[in-house]
């Protein structure tokens, strides 16, 4: 009883707010608008808080990885650092280059942030907790995501700076290339579930074998492969290390964000993190069982806690990778997308079909595993570069 109450506490709070006396007797459209506004403010509030938290945690974790202290001056353990950062960025001078395309330069951060926020709207955060229920939610997510390329281009073009333009070109090239494996890795899930709605996909992963083996798609061979492909592509889509060539500081200053300062830069920063939250949330929804608990008897813990727990794990991996791996070369990034990721993504579809037609049983699991393994080893053999000759050293005589 208490579990259920805690699980639905936000939903019932919203119901209560909508049934308040001053809204009674209001026309339907007004109630609908009020309901949407509540959803929007909840999503924005939660994720702005998470953004503030992750911006300080990322620096802390990176500091830990690099054996140094992170920010530790503002507040206890440096936890108030985001407030200081925010104030600083707000009162900084907003510099617009003289020869910039003013309108486009101004619009780019708005467009990029709007797309990132919209993408957050279709993810189910808990039981009955999808802000924007739509039949083609998955499609909506990726349609909104595909406008990102244009926004990045606007930033690069509007700045009228060669580094900005180079960064934008790099960003668009790798985003277009990795969008393909990203979307094709989602297809097996959509095919097996038979729906494009995130809620239905989460519901399909809500069963347990023997009460403790959850039916998450990541535990099937095709699902595991698709999840890894999706995760790597999402690193690219959110311009994170090792795929941060568009904003490689040591090569092109800050890519398409070079000419942005103050609050506009902060907006880009926010959009990048919101994009990261959205795509990690989508990964949780598609492969990690959404808001379902890993073990049946743990379902007393509210569903949104499971969702945000899984989300935090994925975000930690993002940061971990950033602290561990060096940046890839541009040609390596592109070659990897077209020669390895894309064929592997197609293999996942075949493996999922094999699994599906073996009635989701053990035989299907093994056959599916075989398909993925054969494709993996075959592709690795094909992609493998010629061995380089041993390096010879020449010393001054």
């Amino acid at each position, binding site marked *: 009883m208490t579990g259920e109450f805690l699980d639905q506490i936000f939903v019932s709070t919203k119901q209560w707010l909508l049934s308040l006396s001053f809204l009674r007797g209001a026309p339907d459209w007004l109630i609908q608008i009020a309901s949407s506004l509540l959803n929007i403010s909840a999503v924005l509030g939660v994720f702005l808080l998470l953004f503030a938290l992750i911006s300080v945690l990322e620096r802390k974790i990176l500091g830990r990885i690099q054996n140094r202290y992170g920010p530790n001056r503002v507040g206890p353990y440096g936890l108030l650092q985001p407030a200081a950062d925010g104030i600083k960025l707000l009162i900084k001078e907003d510099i617009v280059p003289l020869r910039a*395309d003013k*309108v*486009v330069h101004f619009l780019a951060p708005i467009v990029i942030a709007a797309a990132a926020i919209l993408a957050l709207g279709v993810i189910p955060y808990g039981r009955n907790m999808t802000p924007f229920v*739509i*039949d*083609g939610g998955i*499609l*909506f997510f*990726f*349609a*909104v995501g*595909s*406008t990102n*390329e*244009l926004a990045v*281009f*606007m930033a690069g*073009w509007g700045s009228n700076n060669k580094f900005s333009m180079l960064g934008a070109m790099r960003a*668009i090239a790798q985003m*277009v290339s990795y969008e393909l494996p990203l979307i094709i890795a989602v297809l097996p899930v959509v095919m097996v579930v*038979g*729906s*494009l709605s995130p809620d239905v996909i989460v519901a399909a992963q809500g069963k347990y074998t023997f009460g403790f083996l959850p039916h998450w798609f990541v535990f099937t061979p095709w699902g595991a492969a698709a999840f890894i492909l999706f995760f790597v592509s999402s690193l690219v889509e959110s311009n994170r290390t090792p795929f941060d060539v568009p904003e490689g500081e040591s090569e092109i200053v800050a890519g398409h964000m070079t000419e942005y300062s103050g609050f506009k830069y902060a907006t880009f920063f926010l959009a990048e993190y919101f994009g990261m939250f959205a795509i990690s949330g989508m990964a949780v929804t598609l492969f990690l069982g959404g808001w379902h608990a890993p073990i049946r008897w743990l379902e007393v813990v509210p569903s949104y806690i499971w969702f945000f727990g899984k989300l935090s794990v994925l975000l930690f991996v993002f940061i971990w990778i950033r602290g561990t791996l060096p940046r890839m070369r541009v040609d390596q990034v592109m070659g990897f997308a077209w020669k390895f990721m894309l064929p592997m993504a197609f293999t996942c579809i075949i493996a999922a079909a094999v699994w599906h037609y073996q009635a989701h049983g053990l035989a299907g699991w093994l056959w599916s595993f075989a398909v993925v393994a054969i494709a993996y080893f075959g592709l690795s053999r094909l992609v493998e570069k010629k061995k380089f000759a041993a390096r010879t050293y020449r010393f001054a005589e």
Partner: protein
Amino acid sequence: MNTPSFIFISVLTLAAALAAASIKKLIHAAFCLVAAFLGMAAFFFLLGAEFLGLVQIFVYVGAVAVLIVFTILLTHREEETATTGFKWSGALIAAAIFMGLLWTILQTPNLSTDAPLIEPLTVKKIGEVLMTDYVWPLQCIGLLLTAALIGGLILVKEDRDES
């Protein structure tokens, strides 16, 4: 029922389309065209054709707009090449097309304003129809697109060999 939103979206879409046709700076015109595409998607949403609206955003904003922008980037010179002034030939063609459309619409026998209620077109239904009635056209399009993809790759590859 949706008259205010219909008027709002139409005004925005038409303004964006007009701007796309008349603005001299090519890149701005391209961005206005994107706004017009988004307006079209909004119309689809208004009509309850969710899937079509999303595909409109996906294909036109995500792909076609990027293509247009890249074309401008790779071909555009800084000097003003856009012709100024009113073009009678263009106006004539536009008027002819408009009259043709108008004539066709007026010829349509039942132009009732209260259209029959169409149940919303779900993704599932589209998938079922694609896999049953339209399976051969779908396969043909798939083959064509694969051929185009391979053709594009070969073009790029030859280019690289020369250099």
